[in-house]
């Protein structure tokens, strides 16, 4: 009896410990250890677009910095307070982790999981174009950034920073390689490409248009290269109409709804009002896009908020309603990555800079018209608008900017074409805060108002994420030294 019990104790124990390989228990059976490259590519595209589209005050405040909106009650970010909500860190992490790393992983997997080498080649180029597009944001937001050692944690757990200018020229070169490498006769991602449904010709146009845009950024610092690249891009074929635009079409159902709708409408909050900086010129010019950009409160009149002070939401024009379908308050509103309007304005500028031949006015008119049509207006609306002397390219004056021009630290441009194109480009870039900010930093027009209680002067760049100082300390310190500091007032290399 005793022995039976004793043996049974021992055998129960022996039975229980008879696990074949305990390490197998540590394999996560609810998350896959392999994934198809196309699914990573799709998700990276969505992550990227979500981050550059969202007006969430915790991650993307470019609409506030570009002074399209100002905060109604909680005015920190409108006053350039980047620290309280770790804005630089959230932006940095979202792009490197959410977008770049997944594009990178897709590139690593494509050669293995796409059998047709021509298709694989196209897919690799597309993923690379997306990376160039993403780096364009990072390098022009921070300056020097990790690039050659980025997104390779096992080899570079502490990535060094590369010089911003070097990075930028490398991006331009990569874009050339991509354009040359795309093969229209072969397929690609198909529907997994959420921008163009895998259409290779569209991607060639997109890449050339991006090249044009990137070339124009260095028009002042390196006009020779800029001119060469602009011409190459145009010869390669840039956007010819709004139909060519790089558009991300949200489905309208969470989590695939437009983040603007999520933050403005779904949240029930009323955090933003339209600024005088945007509203005053639009009113003065009778802009037909006003009804798409904002609505007025019960007063019925257009009233712009003052940047960085408490603006009672009830009393000002605001972005919460729109009679125009498909605009920002629609959960299925599209998000624009690159459009015909900006390509037109950039070409108008290229004419003025003698980079290309042609009529600046025509390009300007094309840009204005494309933008109005993009926002639900008609060709007639555009024509009426352009017929006004205050809008017409030849006669458009400068100085119609914000109520409080100057004293921003901006050496506001006085060149006529910079003002005329700058203002229309600014209006057309509505909801694309980063592009507007970059355009302002490039053309110095329109002038930005001084916020009510600014934490700093107008930011020329973002400070580095707080986490870099601790998690990547020596490299951060080196970058800080190379940049001449880590303040928002430090100009990037291409700025005059």
């Amino acid at each position, binding site marked *: 009896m005793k022995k039976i019990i004793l043996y049974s104790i021992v055998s129960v124990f022996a039975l229980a410990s008879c696990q074949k390989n305990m390490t197998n228990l540590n394999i996560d059976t609810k998350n896959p*250890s392999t994934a198809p490259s196309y699914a990573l590519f799709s998700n990276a595209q969505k992550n990227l677009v979500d981050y550059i589209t969202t007006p969430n005050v915790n991650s993307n405040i470019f609409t506030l910095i570009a002074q399209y909106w100002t905060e109604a009650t909680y005015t920190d970010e409108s006053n350039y307070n980047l620290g309280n909500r770790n804005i630089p860190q959230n932006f940095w992490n979202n792009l490197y982790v959410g977008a770049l790393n997944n594009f990178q*992983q897709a590139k690593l997997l494509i050669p293995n999981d796409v059998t047709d080498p021509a298709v694989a080649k196209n897919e690799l180029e597309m993923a690379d174009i997306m990376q160039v597009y993403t780096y364009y944001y990072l390098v022009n937001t921070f300056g020097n950034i990790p690039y050659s050692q980025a997104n390779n944690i096992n080899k570079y757990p502490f990535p060094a920073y590369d010089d911003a200018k070097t990075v930028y020229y490398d991006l331009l070169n990569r874009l050339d390689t991509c354009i040359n490498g795309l093969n229209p006769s072969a397929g690609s991602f198909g529907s997994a490409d959420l921008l163009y449904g895998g259409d290779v010709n569209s991607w060639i146009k997109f890449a050339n248009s991006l090249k044009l845009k990137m070339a124009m950024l260095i028009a002042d610092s390196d006009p020779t290269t800029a001119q060469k690249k602009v011409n190459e891009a145009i010869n390669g074929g840039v956007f010819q109409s709004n139909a060519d635009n790089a558009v991300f079409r949200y489905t309208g159902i969470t989590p695939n709804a437009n983040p603007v709708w999520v933050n403005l409408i779904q949240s029930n909050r009323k955090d933003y009002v339209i600024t005088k900086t945007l509203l005053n010129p639009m009113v003065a010019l009778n802009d037909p896009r006003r009804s798409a950009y904002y609505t007025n409160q019960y007063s019925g009149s257009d009233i712009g908020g003052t940047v960085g002070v*408490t603006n009672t939401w009830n009393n000002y024009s605001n972005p919460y309603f729109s009679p125009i379908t498909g605009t920002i308050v629609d959960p299925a509103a599209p998000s624009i990555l690159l459009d015909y309007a900006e390509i037109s304005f950039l070409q108008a500028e290229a004419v003025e800079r003698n980079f290309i031949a042609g009529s600046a006015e025509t390009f300007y008119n094309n840009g204005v018209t494309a933008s109005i049509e993009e926002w639900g207006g008609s060709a007639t609306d555009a024509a009426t608008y352009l017929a006004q002397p205050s809008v017409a390219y030849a006669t458009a004056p400068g100085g119609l900017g914000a109520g409080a021009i100057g004293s921003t630290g901006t050496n506001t441009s006085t060149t006529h074409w910079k003002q005329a194109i700058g203002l229309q480009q600014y209006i057309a870039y509505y909801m694309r805060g980063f592009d507007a900010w970059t355009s302002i930093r490039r053309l110095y027009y329109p002038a930005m108002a001084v916020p009510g209680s600014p934490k700093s002067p107008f930011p020329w760049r973002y400070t580095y994420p707080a986490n870099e100082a601790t998690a990547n300390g020596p490299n951060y310190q080196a970058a800080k030294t190379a940049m001449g500091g880590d303040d928002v007032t430090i100009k990037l290399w291409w700025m005059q």
Partner: protein
Amino acid sequence: MRKLLSLAIVLLLGVSQIFAQTHLVKGRILDGDGKPVEGATVQVKKGTAVTAADAQGNFKIEAKPGDVLVFSAVNFATKEVKLGNETDLAVTLTRQSSQLDEVVVTAMGIKRSRNALPYAAQEVGGDEVSKTRNSNFVDGLSGKVAGLQITQPTALGASTNVVLRGIKSISQTNQALFVVDGVPFDNTSTATVGQRSGQGGYDYGSNAADLNPDDIESISVLKGAAASALYGSRAANGVILITTKKAKRGLGITVNAGVNVGSYDKSTFVKYQHEYGANYGSGPEINGAYPYGYGSPDGNFLYAPLPQFGQNTPQLIVPTTEDASYGAKFNPNLLVYQWDAFANYPGNPNYGKPTPWVAAKNDPSTFFVNPVSYNTSVFIDGGGENGTFKLGYLRTSDNGILPNSNITKNMLNFGATHNLSKDLTVGGTINYSEISGLGRYGTGYESNNVMTNFRQWWEMNVDIKQQKQAYFNSGGQNVTWNMTDPINGNTKPIYWDNVYFVRYQNYENDSRQRIFGNAYINYTPSKSITLLGRVSMDTYNSLQEERDAIGSVNVPFYSRNNIFYKEMNYDFLATYNKDLSKNFNFKALLGANLRQDTYSSIFASTNGGLNLPNFYALSNSVNPINAPNEALLEKEVGGVFAGATLTYKDMLTLDGTVRRDQSSTLPAGNNAYTYPAISGSWAFYKLLDNAPWISFGKVRVNYAEVGNDAPYHSILNTYVINTPFAGNAMVTLPTTNNNPNLKPERTKSFETGLEMSFLKNRVGFDFTYFASKTFDLITQVNASGATGYLSQYVNFGSIQNNGIELSLNGTPIKTRNFSWDINVNWSKINNKVLSLFNNQQNQVLASYQGGVSINATVGQPFGTIQGNDFIYTNGQRTVGSDGYYLMDTKTTDIIGNATPKWTGGINNSFRYKSFTLSFLIDMRHGGNVFSLDTYYGLADGIYAETAGLNDLGNPSRNSLANGGGIILKGVTADGKTNTIRVDNSGQGYGLYGYVYNPARAFVYDASFVKLRELNISYSLPAKTIERMKPVKGIDIAIVGRNLWIISKNLPYADPEDGLGAGNAQGYQSGSYPAVRNIGFNVKFKF
């Protein structure tokens, strides 16, 4: 405990021959008060007969004249009586204040005499944690054990932080391991990371609270690794060893019935100003107008016609969107349209009417209710020749100070032993508990945490009682004061729901059914060998349901989280115990343990809102629901261990153990780790016969190592599947890079101690010095985002803890009718982060709203609070040329530390005849806490100090032109005292809050002195009881918990409150006030 002791002695004695000519001696064992000493052991000296007294103190034993009977019981001095011819004895035992002669339960349930205990272990009687009738017994340990830091959040049922001897691991748990009757008892918090980092959510409490406090016989706290090493990896944080009650001979029934009433502690809630109402300030006056104001001529009100109320000229309307109180000064003669003018609910006399501009009669403090809670318990035990059993049932119903909050617990436990033969015993216990929560408090920065509203964003003109009326009279509608745009008919909430709507509509509910038990076989093949085989299981199913009703500020939703947990332990333990010679005793043990854990959960939520009102099911989702989030975490740890103890004359003890674990969470080839412990003690008092005033004295020293494994799934990377986009699969890389090269985390610890007692144990102390160093910490470190990951798993760095623990006990007064016992526990821990990953100086543990973070910083105690600081000149705050403070722009200044400098408790117990009065003072000194509540609340002008008079005797909120404003205390850059007066009328937020002050201004000293427990009990005298058969005892008690915070430096809140259990402490957001509890309890024994 007494029964335990007697059982232990029985086992130690073994079997021997039986003398003839014995006869039955019976008797009764009483204490000095004439009360029976239940469970006292009676044995024949140099004989084999042994028995235990029943609940009435009665015993029977076979003995013969001339035998010496030895009577012993825990807390009593042993007494020897030489037997004559009497057959009926009356024995009185003398109570001993000190517990030094006690037998202590140590690892693996092995009992040891104090003399032979070579490491620090402190015992707390079960009564100590059950007498306060707190349904969470863990809270009852606070202040009672030196070196044990218990932190209790103020929210109902929130989880208790339990840390022994300091923080040892950066990102793994530092919570002490609970072991019940030899079996680990899960205490994992199911709170989300978001909840713990202040983003909102619920704290579902500590699972250790699933144990019936009335079933606890004793708690033994094994503080250091040497004491606990046999429990394996998890014991690195110390072990709280719980022994449940063992049945006694005869039948005993104990019934407890109690009721208690709570009330909020006013010193832990906001002190409001009652002079000014809604808005963020009218802005500056420019040429007689307020261009940045709200529209009215004075800038403080909206100004619009209200044709719906027949008003075609502009009217003064309160800006209901402005959740602050920097507005117009109250003036009963001023009539304004307030939120209630726009709320058309039955019985609203103010609909469509302007009302006087006055401070609310009922500020948010009137929101709290005085909850009544109940508890009832029945405990039955019994035993005979061949076995024992016990059966306990406890029901508690705890209500909170917020409306619609309740936690009900039902716990049933059963245990039995049976002697199959004289050397074979089988036994087992099974505990079933069912915990139901309803309306747990929302935490963090979230609209469902009403405290965010009350402490941070509020209008002083809003009357809580009116909000209550609006909610109930409207039939449960979200009629909020914080209307979006009432002028145009949009009365929906903009940021804040009606707080009654929050409590009655946006509530959570949860339940947990838990089964915990074991079955064992104990076999004693010879008198020196015992074999134990045991299988134990701890498993629960938990459901957590959360919701936001239609009409809420948040997107309405319903979510459910189903959690299943199971831990199986298979133990085999062989012990050997032999007296090698007259002076040497040798004990050895050999064991093996296999532990298998499974945690699985499925979380699902509606998407995009709810269709039908008041209906909460996933099917009620507006959009198709996204795939539920599944988790399956499995783990297996196999351990073998051995130990040996050599004792010389019950005076010198040398003890060594070694354990080897193999864990599935570590990479194969690197997953086994062996760790030793060696201890020695010398009970030197045995040599001090010439110093009779020394009753006890022992020194002890030990060294141990413990290894720890890795968290689940931290080796291999896996992808994350996201919701498909228009039919396309969406997959991303994870944001944490796992590490296939992880190795075990190690702790090395050293401890030495001295225990002494004097004057027949009337005074004694126990002093311990300890030092531990943890290295190869397995931590998720922050990575540069540029690597593509936010964090990665690595082994790195080290943390050291050293400190001292001191327990003092004494009986200053002891007479027949009166005694006074005092017990003091004190400990000081010096925690220091020695090194971090790759020579980094800082590791962020958690980043919080307010621009602050909790960190591990090299050279500092764990838990530095970082944010921006003032700029100092000669040690004083510097003001700029505008008269405002200058602030550092860096958010990495060290502005505080969450780790306390020392903790302590003083317990006093007075007994007069049948009355006992005891009280516990619990203290914490040092440590800081950052308050997001004052960070925002001071900027909003709701706190008293934001209004009132300035140094000139004028209202500080007057404009500077009208003699208002404040001169901030500080110096200018050249060191001169500041003389510039600055505005406090609320321009760009108030002067005192976050806009004009760095985070440092909201860091407070978290020290406190609390009257933690107060008990007055009365036992009916034995004479009275004898007439009340079958009742054997009635105890009546008045119990108080958290009655008084005697001293603290954090204004308006309880410094102990935080965001639940976890490594990142020192942050408050939407803190709930402390709750005083006073209760009445009656205990019947049958």
